[in-house]
């Protein structure tokens, strides 16, 4: 007896020519993620250990770390990074779990779902500014209540925004992370057989929330673990949100590292690099701690489940879950509304609830810049998303045809650019690219964006792709269609909606990139976000309002298209409307 597969493979090779390129795609994609991150981290490690030839520094050793340790703000900066990251991740996960447990599958939940895309589209910095203006002592909430309810003619001197504990920062992060975790959880939920599991559990007498947490949550959490890690790493290292909402005496470690990186004293680059390395170590430590926490919670959870409590009095818990989620959505959307108002505001004094006049001056002033940057932003987003989508389809198709599935290690690699703090590898990467002779330009920035777009696109596409009924492929093959025809005529058209959603996610990720655009582009590549952050550094709320709206629109339009186009194209195809 012989292995007929290998024989056949030899005989039929000419027919399956594309197979030679396809199996290489996962490798290519992995290299694409690994090399830049690796090169960048090396480029940061070198100055951290005293090697920065351009500044005339060649003293290998731990001097930079000693210098960092001597900085009096270090304990507070580290604490802030850990607390803000850990608490906001924990809260985001808790809110998502509570809302899903309390409301998934209900009509109320459809409304929650409809809010997701707009919430995801609001850029972090814009959301932070909006929130700051809502809750500051001179913000909209107090303006609306003053002076009739509070008696204030002048804003009170309360430390709400930028409080030393980072509570406002945590609130801002939670408001922005909840939609992301929710999106990921919904994707995972699609794979768990939640409906029937819930029916069984509830028929056994379990309350809705208890049933969900005991039966469905373990399945969902296993799927969203890595995205949760991403949220943890992101929250610990976020810069733009922390500058606006976080304390500055001292700021969080990532903010301080970026500040040092920009210090005119070139020797500070070493301290900045050391801080970036410490930040990387903190993130790794926090991930390890989280992982240990997972095991502890799992052990406790198993005991809790085995104890068999039914948890019936859940009315208040359900309302609280919805209330908190509603509050975080209102914070983002309300903040955006307030920024929209600012973008057309004339003078607006405390405690007037409305501006004293409206003017289009800010929009006309920024119109020219907007036109140019919108075009550049769109080109970069479209090309990087297209590349990422092609790579993702290549990887998934290789998985389907050749069983080349990314293992656990591969999945970590995929997340590498999202887990390694941007401050820890982008400056090094920028130097490495210069060394390699790559000029910072639109092309280089687009390539750098792919680094961050690809993981999200792959995540967004992977589940629907794998959930696709492979028997359609078998049927098509039996009808004589080769693997390529199956891909182009059956699989891709049937997956149009998830493809467009993945593309919209990709575009919104690309639109939001700040540091990669700035550092890799050498400042020459201007997008809506680089302009918005530059203006945000000035703190002009009117300008921020204009750019925040433009940025949100740039991310929201693709989401709208992703929802609308399939409905239009498949208007007469009932079978395409679900799944």
């Amino acid at each position, binding site marked *: *007896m*012989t*292995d*007929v*597969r*290998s*024989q*056949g*493979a*030899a*005989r*039929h090779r000419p*027919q*399956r020519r594309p197979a030679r390129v396809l199996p290489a795609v996962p490798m290519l994609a992995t290299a694409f993620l690994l090399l830049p991150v690796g090169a960048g981290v090396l480029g940061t490690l070198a100055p951290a250990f005293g090697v920065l030839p351009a500044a005339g520094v060649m003293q290998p050793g731990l001097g930079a770390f000693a210098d960092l340790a001597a900085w009096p703000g270090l304990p507070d900066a580290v604490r802030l990074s850990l607390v803000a990251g850990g608490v906001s991740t924990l809260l985001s996960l808790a809110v998502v779990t509570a809302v899903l447990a309390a409301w998934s599958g209900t009509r109320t939940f459809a409304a929650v779902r409809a809010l997701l895309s707009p919430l995801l589209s609001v850029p972090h910095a814009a959301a932070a500014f909006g929130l700051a203006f809502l809750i500051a002592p001179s913000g909209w909430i107090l303006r609306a209540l003053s002076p009739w309810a509070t008696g204030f003619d002048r804003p009170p001197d309360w430390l709400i925004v930028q409080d030393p504990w980072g509570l406002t920062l945590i609130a801002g992060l939670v408001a922005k992370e909840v939609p992301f975790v929710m999106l990921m959880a919904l994707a995972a939920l699609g794979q768990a057989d939640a409906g029937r599991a819930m029916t069984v559990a509830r028929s056994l007498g379990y309350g809705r929330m208890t049933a969900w947490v005991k039966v469905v949550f373990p399945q969902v959490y296993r799927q969203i673990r890595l995205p949760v890690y991403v949220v943890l790493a992101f929250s610990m290292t976020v810069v733009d949100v922390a500058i606006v909402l976080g304390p500055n005496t001292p700021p969080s470690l990532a903010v301080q590292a970026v500040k040092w990186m920009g210090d005119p004293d070139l020797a500070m680059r070493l301290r900045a690099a050391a801080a970036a390395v410490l930040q990387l170590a903190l993130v790794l430590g926090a991930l390890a701690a989280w992982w240990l926490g997972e095991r502890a919670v799992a052990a406790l959870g198993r005991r809790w489940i085995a104890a068999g409590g039914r948890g019936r009095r859940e009315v208040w818990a359900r309302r609280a879950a919805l209330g908190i989620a509603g509050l975080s959505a209102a914070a983002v959307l309300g903040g955006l509304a307030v920024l929209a108002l600012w973008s057309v505001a004339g003078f607006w004094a405390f405690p007037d609830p409305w501006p004293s006049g409206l003017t289009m001056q800010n929009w006309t002033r920024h119109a020219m810049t907007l036109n140019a940057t919108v075009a550049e932003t769109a080109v970069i987003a479209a090309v990087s998303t297209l590349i990422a989508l092609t790579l993702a389809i290549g990887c998934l198709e290789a998985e389907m*045809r*050749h*069983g080349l599935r990314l293992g656990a290690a591969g999945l970590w690699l995929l997340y590498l650019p999202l887990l390694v703090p941007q401050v820890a590898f982008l400056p090094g990467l920028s130097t490495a690219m210069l060394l390699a002779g790559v000029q910072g330009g639109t092309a280089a920035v687009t390539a750098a964006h792919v680094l961050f777009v690809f993981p999200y696109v792959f995540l967004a596409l992977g589940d629907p792709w794998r959930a696709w*009924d*492979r*028997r*359609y492929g*078998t*049927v*098509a*093959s*039996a*009808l*004589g*269609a*080769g*693997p390529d025809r199956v891909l182009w*005529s*059956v699989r891709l*058209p*049937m997956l*149009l909606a998830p493809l467009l959603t993945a593309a919209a996610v990709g575009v919104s990720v690309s639109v939001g990139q700040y540091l990669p655009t700035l550092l890799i582009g050498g400042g020459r590549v201007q997008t809506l976000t680089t302009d918005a952050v530059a203006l945000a550094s000035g703190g002009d709320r009117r300008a921020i309002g204009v750019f925040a709206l433009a940025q949100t629109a740039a991310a929201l339009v693709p989401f709208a298209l992703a929802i609308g186009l399939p409905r239009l194209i*498949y208007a*007469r*195809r*009932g*079978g*395409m*409307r679900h799944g």
Partner: protein
Amino acid sequence: MDEGLSLDRVQVRLNGRVLLSLDLAVAPGTVTSVMGPSGSGKSTLLGAVMGTLSAPFEVLGRIRLDGADLSGRPPEARGIGILFQDDLLFPHLSVGANLAFGLPPGLRGRAARRAAVDAALSEIGMAGFAARDPGSLSGGQKIRVALMRTLLSEPRALLLDEPFSSLDADLRAQMRTMVFARARARTLPVLMVTHDAEDAAAADGPVLRLG
């Protein structure tokens, strides 16, 4: 035996464990039923015949169709049609486009292909349905279109994977008759996997039990 579908000492292994082992010959115009409980290897058998099993599965032995060795051929080059329990009409294509998907590429010209599709629809009593959305068809209509789509691709053998189990009793009998009749008319060897004894009885052919 040169005519028909034959499985010559076929063995399917997974990581060295033997999942399935059988010898089988299906003559043209006859239906062989394979029965067995869940997990007895029915879908593995279909996968082996279709050529959709990939590593770590190992398929040993010979699978022949009309004398030609199918081993190692990709599914699209085997000339074997398949009908599943669900109709699996492509939801993004119209009824006509679904049928045209099965037409061999050798049939050239838009008008000629269109005519072939219309003729096929008339044959199953669904003339004028070409532009319809498959989602709007009744269960019986879907099965008829799915069968016709398979037959249009001119297969030289037919596999049935519990094709009638989703239908109610009346329709089931009706559809069985239609499928078997058309397969016999084209003298196709038919291999049917089922757990419904009535299916096997109606097939009026050899019955093989697995597991």
